[in-house]
């Protein structure tokens, strides 16, 4: 059973220097709380792609490395702070590709140390990722197969649609946040709302994250904004454009961050 906590207490549960999975329904309120407490040296893990949450954490200097299949702001284009940090070398990016990172998380969730993956041959990822191995498939007909290490983040943060009093959390089927949670050792969540009957019935496009996986939950209405929350809110396009505008210049980005976290 998960504990219900305040947002700032939830942020205090995530230590500096940990590997940290970020849910794809982005826990923006919790990210801002992490930055307010001055989080440092995080090794982020995408599930399996990154967006505004990762770009903001990078802008604030909280990120040491990022294991991802790609980072952008979807329809709003490139993630400026991610691009700049990787070009300057201030953040180390560990490149993967969605199906491989998801299978690596599945291996982490299943408690095995590696997994074979399909495809990838011909890609320079195979040269860049010196931790990936190519072997002859022991069950195949002499064909080669790529092996990748499991991914099991020490912590993950996710945002959900609603939680019941035990802390069972409803999320969308659009993303892979449940898999991220399964693979992670400790999970801190936020939820749009809490109610006794939150999990009594689920829509066809919803799924459950059992409370057994969660350490703590904070109620944070609008906790994904300015990114829209499945079925509840749409992207706040004006706020995202304001972010992008500031992000074009590091000086203006600092001013933006000071105001955001004040």
């Amino acid at each position, binding site marked *: 059973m998960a504990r219900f906590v305040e947002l700032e207490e939830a942020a205090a549960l995530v230590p500096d220097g940990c590997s940290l999975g970020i849910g794809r329904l982005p826990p923006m309120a919790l990210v801002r709380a992490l930055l307010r407490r001055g989080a440092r040296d995080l090794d982020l893990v995408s599930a399996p792609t990154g967006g505004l949450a990762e770009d903001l954490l990078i802008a604030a200097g909280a990120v040491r490395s990022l294991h991802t299949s790609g980072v952008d702001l979807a329809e709003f284009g490139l993630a400026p702070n991610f691009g700049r940090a*990787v070009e300057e070398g201030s953040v180390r990016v560990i490149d993967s*590709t969605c199906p*491989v990172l998801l299978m690596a998380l599945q291996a982490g969730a299943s408690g095995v140390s590696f997994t074979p993956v399909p495809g990838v041959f011909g890609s*320079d990822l195979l040269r860049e990722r010196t931790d990936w191995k190519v072997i002859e498939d022991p069950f195949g007909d002499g064909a080669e197969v790529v092996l990748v290490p499991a991914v099991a983040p020490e912590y993950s943060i996710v945002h959900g649609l609603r939680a019941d009093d035990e802390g069972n959390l409803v999320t969308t*089927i659009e993303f892979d946040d449940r898999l991220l949670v399964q693979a992670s050792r400790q999970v801190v969540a936020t939820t749009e709302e809490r109610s006794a009957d939150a999990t009594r019935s689920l829509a066809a496009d919803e799924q459950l994250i059992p409370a057994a996986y969660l350490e703590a939950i904070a109620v944070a209405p609008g906790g994904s904004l300015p990114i829209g929350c499945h079925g509840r809110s749409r992207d706040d396009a004006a706020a995202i454009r304001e972010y992008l505008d500031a992000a074009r210049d590091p000086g203006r980005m600092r001013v933006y961050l000071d105001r955001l976290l004040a």
Partner: protein
Amino acid sequence: MAVVIAREVRDGESVGIGVNSPIPAAGALLARHLHAPRVSLRLRGVEDAVPFVGSKEFFDFAQRGRLDLFFLSGIQIDPRGWINLHQAGGRRFPGAFGSAVLYPVVKRVILFRTEHSPRVFVPKLDFVTAAGRPQLVVTPRAVLKPGGDGLLELASWHAGETAQTVRAATGFELRPASGASETRPPSEEELVTLREQVYPELEEGFPEFVRRLSRR
């Protein structure tokens, strides 16, 4: 571009469309209205999209060879149709997303790129993100297809272009395919269906794309 893509979609196929692919999304929806009513879609914001649980289930479906058609793009595209989504000219771009696995495993891949210029169509990629053989490449100027040796050839050029202008905008030698000609222009039916039926359907999944279209 959406009309050219729509004509390539076959009835009954399973078609996947990424979250950054509004033009292929428009093409697939247009095909569904016109000649491919039984196409199944994995597409954000469409009510009857296949209800896969997470993107993992979608990728698993593709990895088992069940996905008929997918769309990829590239910051750079080389003469074989291999793509770079990582870095070019010292600049960092988003990354592979699903491409490094999908390109080799999906039955047919159509490349689309909204800029057709020598900096996009390059002889050699700065980084090979994904390798595969495209069915065709669609740009605002032309349609390219791999020839017998796997190298891209000019299949058709759109109205306003010529074989010469397309070749000048391509950073590698682009042979004309046998029978290369002007692209068949969009029909009235294709254009009306696109405007009146497809764009409203895209509003949920691609609001910014539709907003930009409506401002034009």
